[in-house]
């Protein structure tokens, strides 16, 4: 009976884990991680402004359709986004097929998804096209310009037009 009593007492004994080395490790690790942590992730969008070309334009007549390159022009106006297309290889009627005017929605937001969808259709027909000229209105905010660039460069995970040229309105 005494033995049974001793077994019960030894089973009840608490085992203390020494937390001091663990705390020591954390006190060293946390400052190191704080110094090397990055809470803001900065990325970049490559863009350019138009310059006067010194080379002659390539004659694109009699080129097969998949090789034709179109240049999309996206004008961000105050109440809408206007999409037009320029190319020396296509007739005006064919270029007008891709023209669109996308109005702001009831909440006053630009229809950037619709713009991406329109550019995707253009890209599907002419996959070599890779340039968008973005012409914002003078009062368009930089935030809107960046979002329009995102809409022109990607639709979800699908790449669209990788070269975005920022230009002021001419005339």
């Amino acid at each position, binding site marked *: 009976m005494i033995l049974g009593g001793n077994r019960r007492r030894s089973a009840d004994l608490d085992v203390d884990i020494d937390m001091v080395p663990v705390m020591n490790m*954390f006190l060293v690790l946390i400052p190191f*991680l704080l110094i090397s942590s*990055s809470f803001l992730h900065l*990325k*970049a*969008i490559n*863009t350019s402004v138009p310059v006067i070309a010194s080379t002659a334009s390539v004659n694109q007549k009699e080129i097969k359709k998949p090789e034709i390159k179109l240049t999309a022009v996206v004008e961000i106006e105050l109440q809408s986004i206007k999409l037009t297309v320029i190319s020396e290889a296509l007739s005006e009627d064919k270029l007008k097929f891709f023209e669109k005017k996308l109005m702001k929605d009831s909440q006053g937001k630009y229809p950037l998804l619709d713009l991406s969808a329109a550019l995707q259709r253009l890209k599907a027909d002419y996959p070599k096209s890779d340039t968008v000229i973005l012409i914002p209105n003078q009062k368009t*905010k930089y*935030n809107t310009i960046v*979002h329009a660039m995102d809409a022109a460069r990607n639709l979800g995970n699908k790449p669209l037009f990788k070269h975005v040229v920022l230009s002021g309105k001419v005339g």
Partner: protein
Amino acid sequence: MQQLVQKKAAFVPPRLQITAMMDMFTIIVFFLLFSFSDNPDEIKLDNAISLPQSTAQLDYDDTIKLFLSKTELKLNEKTIAVLKGDKIVDFDSKNPKDSQLYKYLQQYKQAREIEIKHHDENGDDGKAVPDLHILFFCDRDLPFLTINNIVKTAAIAGFPNFQFLVLET
């Protein structure tokens, strides 16, 4: 005497309860591990500039930095112009070559031309001198009118290529 000894034996020093502190440290360590970066950004961001968010994934280059906030224009941390109400003070959009921005960028361009000349003379390991472009930090609420003057001036000065810096979403 016996009672005094019993009292002394009965005294047990208090144990420090560090379980809660361990919980906190464990959570902090895991959070910091997730935000660990082996190449943390070394750019000093101006508090006056709120960058726009974007889905861009491209890493930026270490090059000439142009900061445009609602109050001033800085080139590599040197203030070169002041803004009042979205307009650049003492800037004539019809004569951008008279601006301080154009003059400073011309200095960078001349320095680069000298670097290219030295590189061509010495032939440094076949490595080409990297093209200079401008890393552009701009507040998201600024209108295109202000931005257009800046980018147009930079293009005239020989820097038509930009990297617009954004916050990753």
